[in-house]
C-alpha cells in the first residue's frame, strides 16, 4: 500500500508547461471547500489522498505581521513573516461542482491565516490521534471561535482502545458534535468521514440539530 505523506509535494508539469493532472471540466462553475485539521503526523494528507481525484498538491501562504509573536525564520531574516504550508486535493462532485479538501496544520500560528484561507468553508474535520489528544484542543477551540461547524474523526493507529465516550470526555466535546472512528488510509472510510460531516452540516442548516 502506498502511504502518502506531506513530504512529497507534487508540482510536475508536462513539456507544454501544463500541469500533469486531469483538468476540471469546462462546465465547472462552483468550488467548495472542506478543511481537515489536525496535528503533525495525524494523517491529514493520507485522508486527502485517499479520496482525492488528483495526487495531493502542496502550496503555502505567507503573511507579514507587525510585532505579532516571534517566528524563528523571521528572526534570521529580520522580518516577521508567517509561512503556512498545506496540502490539498479535489473531488469533482458533478459536472458543475468541485470540492477541494485541505489538510491544514492545527498549531497556533496557522489560525492567523484562517479567515484569509478558509472563510466560507462548508465545515471541518478534526482528525485526532488518541495518543496525542491534547494536540486537538486548540484546533477545536479555534473552530468554535470562528463559528466553523466540525466533526471529530479518530484516526485508528491501533493504539490502546478508548471508547468514544472517553474521547468525547477528554475533548470536552458536546453530545451534538459527531465523533467517529476512521482509517485515513481507506478510501471508503475517509469518504464516510466526509459524508458524516456533510450530513451533520445538513442537519444544522435545516435546523434539525442546534449548534453546540
Amino acid at each position: 500500500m502506498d502511504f502518502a505523506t506531506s513530504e512529497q509535494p507534487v508540482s510536475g508539469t508536462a513539456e507544454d508547461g501544463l500541469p500533469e493532472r486531469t483538468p476540471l471540466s469546462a462546465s465547472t462553475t462552483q468550488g467548495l471547500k472542506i478543511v481537515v485539521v489536525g496535528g503533525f503526523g495525524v494523517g491529514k494528507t493520507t485522508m486527502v489522498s485517499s479520496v482525492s481525484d488528483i495526487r495531493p498538491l502542496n502550496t503555502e501562504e505567507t503573511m507579514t505581521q507587525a510585532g505579532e509573536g516571534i517566528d524563528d525564520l523571521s528572526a534570521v531574516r529580520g522580518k516577521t513573516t508567517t509561512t503556512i504550508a498545506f496540502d490539498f486535493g479535489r473531488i469533482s462532485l458533478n459536472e458543475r461542482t468541485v470540492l477541494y479538501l485541505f489538510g491544514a496544520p492545527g498549531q497556533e500560528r496557522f489560525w492567523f491565516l484562517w479567515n484569509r484561507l478558509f472563510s466560507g468553508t462548508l465545515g471541518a474535520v478534526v482528525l485526532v490521534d488518541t495518543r496525542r489528544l491534547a494536540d486537538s484542543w486548540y484546533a477545536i477551540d479555534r473552530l468554535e471561535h470562528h463559528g466553523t461547524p466540525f466533526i471529530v474523526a479518530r484516526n485508528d493507529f491501533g493504539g490502546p482502545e478508548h471508547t468514544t465516550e472517553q474521547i468525547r470526555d477528554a475533548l470536552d466535546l458536546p453530545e451534538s458534535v459527531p465523533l467517529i472512528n476512521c482509517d485515513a488510509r481507506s478510501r471508503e472510510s475517509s469518504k464516510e468521514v466526509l459524508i458524516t460531516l456533510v450530513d451533520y452540516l445538513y442537519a444544522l442548516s435545516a435546523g434539525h440539530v442546534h449548534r453546540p
Partner: protein
Amino acid sequence: MSGPDRPDRPGRTSRSAREESPDRLYTVTGGRSHSDPKEFDLVTLVVSECSPTITMQSEHAAILRICQSPTAVVELAADLDLPISIVRILLGDLLSSGRITARHPRSTATDTASSLPDPDVLKQVLVGLRNL
C-alpha cells in the same frame, strides 16, 4: 499555550525555493504585497479569455496557459510555486485587463460567522460523495 508535546514546525526543508527568494516575489509583483482575499477565494475558478503573448510577464503567461480549463486559485499557486497572496495579485492584474474571468464560490460567508451553507448545496455534495 502550547500543548505538552510541541508539534513540529510546518515549514518544509525539501522545497524552500519560495522561502529563500523574497526578491523573486518582489519582482513578480512589481513590489506589491497586498492582495484582497475577498477578490479571489482559494477555490475561485479562473478561466482564460485570451492566449498568452510573447511580451507578457512569464507568470501571467503561465496562468493563461493553465487556465484554458477552469483552475482554482489554490491549484495555480501550487503550479506556479508561489504563495497564494502573490497569485492573487497576479490574478488581479489579469482580471482588470479582461484576460481572465473568475467563477466565484456561490456563498462567500466572509463576515457572518454563524452562517451555514445552503441546504441545496449540501444535498448536492452528499449525492456526489455517495456516488464516489
